[in-house]
């Protein structure tokens, strides 16, 4: 079943899939993620598209032993990584043995077994 496309969000995932991730920035330099009509920090409606840094630094992570139904039978590892002006939550697609706070990750796109696309992350050290 084809999942309903979400403008802005799926555009970002398409870009991440092409190694061309981006974020939105207002004139004051506040970063945000699409879709946005205005900057969530200051309300400015002049938003430019800026390239997302190639790697982000993991600030926290968890391995979820009791998963949501979409990940039944798995123990998904989720990280939040700092990319400078923005942070991204993503599911780790590599073995988590080497994962720690401070690890560098590369953003990508992942899918759950039910087909839902979302942000993924790969350890830069595994690339």
């Amino acid at each position, binding site marked *: 079943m084809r999942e309903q496309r*979400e403008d802005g*969000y799926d555009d970002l995932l398409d870009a991440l899939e092409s190694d061309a991730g981006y974020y939105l920035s207002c004139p004051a330099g506040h970063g*945000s*993620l699409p879709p946005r009509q205005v900057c*969530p920090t200051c309300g400015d409606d002049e938003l430019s598209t800026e390239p997302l840094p190639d790697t982000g630094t993991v*600030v*926290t*992570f*968890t*391995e*979820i*032993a*009791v*998963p*949501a*139904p*979409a*990940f*039944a039978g*798995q123990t*998904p590892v*989720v990280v*939040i990584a700092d990319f400078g002006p*923005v*942070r*991204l*939550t*993503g*599911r780790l697609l590599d073995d988590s043995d080497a994962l720690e*706070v401070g690890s560098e990750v590369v953003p990508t796109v*992942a899918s*759950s077994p039910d087909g*839902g*696309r*979302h*942000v*993924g992350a790969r350890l830069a050290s595994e690339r």
Partner: protein
Amino acid sequence: MHAVRIAGAGSTAFGASPERTGRDLFGEAARIAIEDSDVPRADIERLCYGNFVGTVTECQGHQAPLMAEAAGVTAPATRYESACASGGVALKSAVEAVRSGAVDVVLVGGMERMHNVTTEQATEGLAMAADHLYESRTGVTFPGAYALMARAYFEEFGGTRADLAAVAVKNHRNALGNDKAQFQKEISTTDVLEAPTVADPLGLYDACPITDGASACVLVSEAYAEENNLDASIAVTGAGQGTDSLALQHRESLTRTPATTRAATAAYDEAEIAPSDVDLLEVHDCFTIAEVVALEGLGLYDHGEAIDAARSGETTRNGDLPVNLSGGLKAKGHPVGATGVSQVVELTKLLRGDHINSTAVPDASVAVAHNAGGTVASATVHVLEVRS
């Protein structure tokens, strides 16, 4: 501004009652609260009602008229939804309605029924409080979200799982003898540390349970209480609400909860109190780490300082600042839409002297209730004070 008094308060027993309908649960809580108040049903001018996932678990939208009917009330009724803070925002609206002079009597309450669906379905329903696109789709569950916060806290400030376990041990101990509580049994630090992991670093005993239940209060204006010679010695003197970004990734800090701080600042200002005036609290301990960040957000501890508050005994029954004497969400239970009101039901009884744990706080005069939604994207704070 019209002063607000609590004329009546009551809850159902909290726990697993999968065969009881939501309307039956709320009807019971409302009946207890109305009987406790001595207010005639015909005088109730509004129902403010909190519920989160009833559209999922009972396939029941438009619950407010149903719950008014269950309570035997014909007043205008509205459902409030703000995830786990649904009860708190319903309460704040009820307080504002009385304060404004628009009404003199409000029935406020909440209900949640979740044991009638599978644990997986309940978990999925609760996860709807997170950002669906940027969090839930990646696999973040609610325990997962708080686990992300717990690890970030440990990284920034230090602390251990044993520190968090002390919160669970304390709140279970507080629930002993509370006949409304879901778990009335002690647990040990070892029990917490050896429980199955739910989302690393949090285990099963770091989490509150899935709970069915309902709570309600009757709020009245001070003038109405005096005219009708009501025994309504507890006043709501402060009410605040705060909002933050829904997704953790959009927040400046993963260890601070500015929604709580904003709500507390507003509530303390209204009540003209400082954090140092607070004698006891019910705070939103959906996970052990949540109690820690709540106490810091409320201004009772500096950031990074509340991690050992339970372990050191400061927030235990005999400590300087008893927290969650009811057992908290952790042991009393967390019927989501009811929780914000249930905290005030418990505090009202604690302050009136008719709670099993009132003996722990015989001279208390100022209490605070803190209710949070999601990963504290929503928060409410209410200040209760004893009046003559």
